[in-house]
């Protein structure tokens, strides 16, 4: 029954997308688009909820449901791949967020996109995204994981480039697509290794066989884990493959909220959690994962401070927050990573959608320099945005506090390396509070921008405010399912999927554990880490208040004092420049070189040389031709025979 529901959940958004696409050039009435677009996701959400409750009534160990449609390929040698889905605790958690938050964002879009061309196309592509994302999390083997993985990339490409007559959007879309193809390649090569070592790509078989046949700590284990992680880095915008995400903000704001904040970009976290058995076989890979997460969270947080586009600040904040999740998974704290994914989906969707209300009100203005003192006219947005800021900054009681704090505590409990990561993530927490309150204060406090706003405010209706209100509530209460010194609902729920250590069966039948379980922080340690992160969060807020609360004078004075640092952060540590001047330039130059020199001169030139040889021969033949067909025939036969004899002699 849960398997069937899984297919229904998957099928509804696909059906919605196909129906909407089938209209082609004809724009159907808006009502129809809304009904199909939102209805399909709403029904999918309901089906997911039903599946979730029926799963609740099952025994914890029996909550995995595999359902197959047909055999996709059977190549002999044991490699057999089915079109199949696998619903378990992890996938249902993802599905709830994807369809639930997805539905709210669809609802919001019915109003937000109402004045845009391509209303139908927007919902068709959004539905297609939801389908792809569900496929990604429901897949029962690596092949369909990769299929879902690539199709969300395609959906993301289409939606980043939604305004396809704008060259900037088109370029951003292409960049996102190509970087994600690099990630796909990593995962595909990991699959080659899995096939070679284990002969299967089915999750259950891979996770059962891997500890037996792949030596723990060896090069193969390291390669598989790191190659999979390349995919995660590309999709989840982790350094150095993160540069596409800020550019992805060219897409409409609901797209940024759903795809580039709440769901798709967290797929990397899902991947590591899903394949954690493979990662645990290589402690070094785990440390690299944690290190990449930590580096990314700090780097992105510094960049977020210097951005002036409201959506770009949120984009860098997303990169940074995913860094926390990735770091958690690298530490083996999978449930903590997933918990942060959950709360982040709430508060980041909230922040983006509220940003959408602000942008909407200001007729498309996204620059912080054109905002300020909006708390009176946009009272609702102010409260919603402030709630999001409090949540992401980790103020106690709000959802982000519980999840981020848990990651920081877990880091502190993991030995020396853990302490380093603890330091980095605490610093990150300080920066997070600082840049988020900078954003809040620059938008809603301070003074009106020079030159005023662009005319009358464009106020949002119920379709936009209701989803934001629901997300506001969720951003407050969403964290209370997992409370320090209290209950651990998320950890308990995911325990059968991510708990336990992979075991290797020895020749004598005994078991050896490979990999390790992340150590739980002690009570005292947790008190210390909570106090620390609380202190830095408050410090960040206060500092932001000191600089940004009253007009621009103070911030201008400070930034004028550090022009180099400021431009370095504004340019996002100049990753793009480096890539453009190395990889892109080299590729383009070598392509041009081949086109202008090698192809005409060498390849075609060589052929021409042969051709001239033939015409010379023809001229020679012209002189000896007698006109007797008999002679020609003899010569032809003799020639062929001679070549054949030579050939036989040579090849003997």
């Amino acid at each position: 029954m849960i398997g069937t529901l899984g297919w229904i959940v998957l099928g509804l958004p696909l059906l919605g997308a196909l129906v909407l696409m089938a209209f082609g050039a004809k724009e159907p009435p808006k009502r129809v688009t809304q009904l199909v677009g939102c209805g399909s996701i709403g029904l999918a959400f309901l089906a997911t909820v039903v599946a979730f409750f029926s799963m609740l009534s099952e025994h914890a160990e029996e909550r995995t449901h595999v359902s197959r449609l047909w055999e996709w390929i059977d190549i002999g040698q044991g490699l057999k791949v089915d079109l199949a889905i696998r619903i378990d605790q992890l996938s249902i958690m993802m599905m709830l967020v994807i369809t639930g938050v997805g539905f709210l964002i669809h609802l919001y879009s019915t109003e937000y996109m109402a004045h845009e061309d391509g209303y139908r196309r927007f919902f068709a592509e959004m539905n297609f995204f939801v389908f792809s994302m569900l496929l990604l999390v429901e897949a029962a083997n690596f092949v369909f994981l990769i299929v879902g993985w690539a199709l969300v990339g395609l959906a993301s490409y289409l939606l980043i480039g939604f305004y396809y007559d704008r060259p900037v959007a088109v370029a951003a879309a292409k960049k996102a697509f190509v970087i994600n193809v690099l990630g796909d390649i990593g995962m595909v090569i990991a699959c080659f290794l899995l096939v070679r070592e284990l002969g299967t790509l089915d999750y259950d078989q891979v996770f059962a066989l891997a500890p037996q046949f792949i030596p723990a700590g060896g090069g193969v284990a390291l390669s598989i884990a790191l190659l999979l992680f390349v995919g995660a880095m590309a999709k989840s915008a982790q350094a150095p493959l993160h540069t596409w995400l800020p550019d992805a903000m060219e897409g409409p704001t609901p797209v940024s909220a759903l795809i580039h904040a709440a769901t798709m970009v967290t797929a990397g976290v899902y991947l590591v959690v899903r394949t954690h058995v493979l990662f645990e076989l290589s402690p070094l890979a785990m440390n690299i994962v944690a290190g990449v997460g930590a580096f990314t969270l700090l780097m992105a947080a510094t960049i977020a401070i210097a951005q002036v586009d409201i959506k770009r600040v949120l984009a860098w904040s997303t990169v940074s927050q995913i860094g926390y999740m990735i770091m958690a998974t690298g530490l083996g704290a999978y449930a903590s990573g997933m918990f942060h994914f959950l709360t982040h989906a709430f508060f980041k969707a909230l922040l983006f959608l509220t940003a959408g209300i602000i942008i909407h009100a200001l007729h498309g203005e996204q620059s912080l320099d054109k905002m300020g003192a909006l708390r009176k006219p946009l009272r609702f947005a102010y409260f919603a945005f402030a709630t999001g800021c409090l949540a992401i900054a980790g103020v106690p009681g709000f959802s982000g506090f519980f999840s981020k704090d848990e990651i920081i505590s877990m880091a502190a409990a993991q030995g020396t390396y853990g302490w380093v990561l603890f330091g980095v993530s605490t610093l990150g927490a300080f920066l997070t509070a600082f840049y988020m309150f900078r954003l809040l204060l620059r938008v809603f406090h301070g003074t009106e921008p020079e030159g005023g706003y662009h005319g009358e405010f464009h106020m949002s209706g119920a379709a936009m405010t209701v989803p934001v209100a629901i997300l506001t509530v969720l951003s407050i209460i969403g964290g209370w399912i997992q409370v320090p010194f209290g209950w651990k609902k998320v950890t308990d729920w995911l325990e059968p999927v991510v708990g336990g250590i992979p075991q290797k069966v020895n020749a004598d039948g005994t078991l050896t554990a490979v990999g390790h379980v992340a150590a739980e922080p002690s009570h005292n340690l947790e008190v210390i880490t909570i106090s620390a992160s609380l202190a830095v969060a408050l410090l960040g807020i206060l500092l932001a208040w000191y600089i940004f609360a009253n007009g621009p004078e103070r911030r201008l004075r400070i930034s004028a004092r550090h022009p180099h640092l400021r431009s370095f952060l504004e340019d996002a540590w100049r990753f793009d420049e480096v890539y453009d001047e190395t990889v892109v330039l080299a590729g383009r130059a070598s392509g041009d070189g081949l086109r202008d020199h090698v192809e005409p001169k060498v390849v075609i030139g060589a052929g021409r040389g042969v051709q001239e040889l033939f015409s010379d021969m023809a001229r020679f033949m012209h002189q000896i031709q007698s006109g007797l067909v008999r002679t020609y025939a003899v010569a032809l036969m003799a020639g062929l025979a001679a070549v054949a004899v030579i050939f036989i002699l040579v090849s003997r």
Partner: protein
Amino acid sequence: MSLTTVLILLPLVGAALTLLVPAGNRDGARSIGVLIALVAFGFNIAAFAKFDQSRGALQLGDRASWISDLAVEWNVGLDGISIWMTLLTTGLFLLAFIAIAARMPDSHPRALIALLLLAECGLLGVFAAGDLVLFYIFWEAMLVPFALLIWMWGDRTRGRAAASFVIYTMVGSLLMLVAILSAAFMAKGPNGTLTFAIADLANHEWTQSQSTWLFAAFALAFLIKLPMFPFHGWMAGAYSSAPLVVTALLSAVMSKAGAFGLLHIAVPLFPVGAEQLALPVGSLAVCSIIYGSLMAWRAQTMRMLVAYSSLAHLGFIVLGIMSFTSIGAEGAVLQMFNHGVVTAAAFAIVGIIARAKHGTEEMDQISGLAKGAPWLAGIFLVVTMAALAIPGSNAFAGEFFILIGTFERHPVLAVLACFGTAYAAVYMLRLYQTTMNGPLDGEPKKAELRGLDVLYLAPLVAAMVVVGLWPAAVTRTTKASVECATTAAGSLGLVTAEGQPPRTAPITTELLGCR
């Protein structure tokens, strides 16, 4: 007469029938073309329905003495690989005839139809031949009509293009003729019986150097035909000069003759030689992938972009064949089918887009068509994604299997080839985005899909979707034949590569019913 014989001779009869039509009668010529192509496709479907996919040998064929003095036989039949290749041929020729029928050129309509039918006959013969001499005859028979098609209906560089096409392929095919004769006489020995039957020659044990030289000669002919870097000197001229329909047929169908020969003749007949040369040929394949991708990225016309992307895709096919693993070779066969379907659609779309601005194929001349031509944009997106082998597409299935197979034998080549897929994203999106996105330049109304375009593209897109969702539909038919073709070379490689017998016992070719 067997189904296969009928299938091969039907286009020949059709070509003869066109002679009955008065010259310049366009309606008569075009109805013969479409009708014959339709009947041939129908026969092919019938053959597919009767096909026994559990057997690897040729079936539904004839074997009769033909030129008995020279031991040449009329030996034709279909196996799991050739049934898909003939389906591709009859299907794409049918579409080509329909496309041509809608826009018949004014010059020599009768000759055009006759030559196309002759080309179809030659290709079907190549795919169905069970005898090397017969194979050679059809191989040459397909060259002539294609060369004439370029020469008579090409653009102003057609003379040079046709000449270079002929000379390149002649060099290859003469070498192949020498190899065919040498192989038959070497296999005969002093007092054996002479035979050119492929199935019989496959039983002969060549010395290592014989096998290597013979393989090299065959392989060269096939690599030129594909074409494969660095033997593709004829490609740019021929592809850019020929009418678009002919270019599509050259790339989508004729190139498969080369790949088919490699898999169906060169590798099973000379497994030792194939194993010796696996690395060099595989490396050329990877060079083709990278070279073709870079050239496609920097190409200036839409047509040449698709042409060079085709060079890259053919590299994948050769790579899969040269892996001698059943998964790699099955991926290669799947990809031969996929490439035919995708390339035919891609060239058709180039023609459709070119309508937006008086037939120009320059890429920087056209942009932003999506706004006025949403159906074109949508279908083109599907084709683009299939061409860049996005996971979930039919081409992904093919390339994925090819690379799994290659990775088992030559991990470095497989990893390098993977980067070809990244390039594919770059150049295909370049084609899509420059023409469909950005500010409008051109007349989208003229480019939007019409009835005929839909008739042409719909079956191709449907094939892409079905194979993407269910690649087993193809591979379950090809499996037995592919194992027949690769088992010998594959088991050799496993022994020499690891110094120990293969993990799984090699399936003996008798067991599969290869003979």
